[in-house]
């Protein structure tokens, strides 16, 4: 049975470096929650604080309704999968999977049974008696997963478990993680720097930046309604285009376009306009400007057109399905409708229109 994890004002300092800065977060039970952010954003440190491998400088951690802040990792009801896999090289895969059960005094027969069951569900049953070094990277990670869930943990922590694997394996394991999550009835906390993994697997995503959680929401909300420029550009591929605009009365001017600003933005000097490449269309829209095409990348059905704005030399990506009449070097007009742009202040905070129009998508 999964447990709720409540973080209350968690701060972790290493000397003068603040790795995690006053994070309060409630991770609901049985959900798949991903901590995502660029390297150095404190996501791994936060995970290690949850696991008990790091002690927070201040703040409390509650698992279920028990305060575990002062408990050691041994006493917390959780398992952890590590980035470097960390299978014990001197033990067979079976012993690796069994080790936790052995510590808890489970008899050998039952141990073997449970290890075999775990191995079957991860499709590594025939690898059980091999040494970890004889397995491929993907199989090793499966063994690591197996030894984490064989104990039926209430919470499973995963620290960038796929960062060393190739793309194909990542796809396979992504499905595996979600299947496990459905079967296990445990709370999953998953750390990654790959927004794609975060978007595809999570019930909820916490986007982190320099030690703080910027936004904690469902993948859909994070994608369509980011609270800041950082969230908007970090989540989604290709990355959100951001244009710098000067404010002239109640109008923001960029390049050849002028954007009518909501009242809430009228006292800013400059604003930044975020436009997802998927919402830009060739030919124009309510807001239109000219760009020069640099490169066209086929993605299968879609194409990503990499362009630079004619006047400001800013990079703009456009996702479109039709490129037959586009050539690198051409200048084209692209446009977006007003409701599909985000406005940010100069330091990246979202400016919302007074009318609540942005939540429904």
């Amino acid at each position, binding site marked *: 049975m999964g447990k709720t994890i409540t973080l209350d004002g968690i701060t972790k300092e290493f000397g003068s470096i603040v790795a995690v800065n006053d994070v309060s977060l409630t991770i609901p039970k049985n959900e798949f929650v991903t901590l995502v952010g660029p390297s150095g954003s404190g996501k791994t440190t936060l995970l290690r604080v949850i696991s008990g491998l790091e002690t927070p400088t201040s703040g409390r951690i509650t698992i279920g309704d028990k305060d575990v802040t002062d408990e050691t990792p041994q006493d917390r009801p959780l398992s952890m999968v590590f980035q470097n896999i960390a299978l014990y090289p001197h033990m067979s895969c079976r012993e690796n999977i069994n080790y936790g059960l052995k510590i*808890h005094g489970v008899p050998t027969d039952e141990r073997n049974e449970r290890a075999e069951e775990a191995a079957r569900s991860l499709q590594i049953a025939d690898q059980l008696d091999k040494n970890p070094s004889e397995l491929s990277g993907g199989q090793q990670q499966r063994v690591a997963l197996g030894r984490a869930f064989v104990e039926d943990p209430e919470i499973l*922590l995963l620290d960038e478990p796929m960062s060393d694997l190739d793309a194909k394996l990542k796809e396979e394991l992504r499905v595996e993680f979600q299947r496990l999550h459905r079967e296990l009835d445990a709370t999953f906390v998953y750390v990654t720097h790959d927004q794609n993994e975060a978007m595809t697997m999570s019930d909820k995503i916490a986007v982190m930046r320099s030690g703080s959680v910027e936004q904690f929401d469902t993948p859909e909300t994070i994608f369509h309604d980011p609270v800041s420029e950082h969230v908007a550009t970090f989540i989604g591929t290709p990355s959100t285009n951001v244009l710098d605009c000067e404010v002239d009365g109640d109008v923001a001017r960029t390049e050849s376009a002028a954007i009518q600003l909501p009242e809430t933005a009228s006292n800013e000097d400059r604003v930044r306009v975020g436009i997802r490449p998927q919402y830009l269309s060739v030919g124009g829209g309510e807001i239109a400007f000219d760009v020069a095409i640099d490169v066209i990348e086929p993605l299968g059905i879609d194409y990503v057109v990499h362009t630079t704005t004619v006047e400001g030399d800013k990079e703009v990506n456009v996702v479109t399905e039709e490129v037959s009449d586009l050539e690198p070097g051409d200048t084209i007009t692209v446009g977006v409708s007003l409701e599909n742009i985000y406005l940010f202040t100069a330091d990246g905070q979202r400016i919302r229109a007074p009318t609540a129009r942005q939540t429904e998508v």
Partner: protein
Amino acid sequence: MFERVLGGPGGLIPNAVQKRVWNVALYVIALLVVIFVLTPLYLMIVVAVQSPETLFSGGQLTLIPPKLSLDNFRTLIEQTPTVSYFVNSVIITGSSVFLSTALAVISGYSLTRFDLTGKSIIARIVLFSYMISPIVLAIPLYVIFFRLGLLNQYISAILAVTAISAPFSIWLMWQYFQNIPIAYEESAWTRGASRWRAARDIVLPLARPGYISVAIFAFAVAWNDYTMVRIVLNDQALYPLTVGSELIFQEVFVGWGEQMSMMLIMSFPPFLVAAFLQNYLLQGFNLGHG
């Protein structure tokens, strides 16, 4: 500086030739080293296994013995305290190896796994103390043991010899533990293993090449030590082979044959250690690069 011109891919000399020259050079050098090392060993053995009658027959040293004899060993064992010296050597060396290795494993683990203040200073002092010649330490150690009333016992010899090997042992083990990722233990902790349990089940088995190297090193130091033992012991009954053999060599009935037999006895244990444990030694000194 010649790399671009003569050697390397694209040099003036074709790769196949380079490779052959390199192989030939390697074997020639290896052969020279082997001859250089084996000649004295051969002489030692040849002299040790001949009876005095055949050794200088014809006025020349006999290099190919016509007949093997163990007379020299018999003389040593029957007429001198060689056996008791050997036992002393084993006691002192064995205890020192155990002590030095245990010290190295405990210190190495602590230095890599705990946040100790002044950790790097400790490590530097440890390594620096290894630079000091044993004879410099010998006199202060003598004074210390004298004050403690420990002189002239096995324990003083064991401690003194361990003091020589411990600094390097600790440094080696410290380096070795740094190569064992902490994630192994962390993964054991999150699965419920106590620190002690994780160290026993995970760290110690992985550190085996490291502590076997340390043990071999401590063995070499202790078995061959002369200075420390000579200073802290003055009871002949406690002497190990190194110091004891000096006394034996002064006996009138001891000639070349007996001396070389003694040398052979002394070299035998190190030879066994090297023969059986050299793989571990190489792994240990490789520090995870292999």
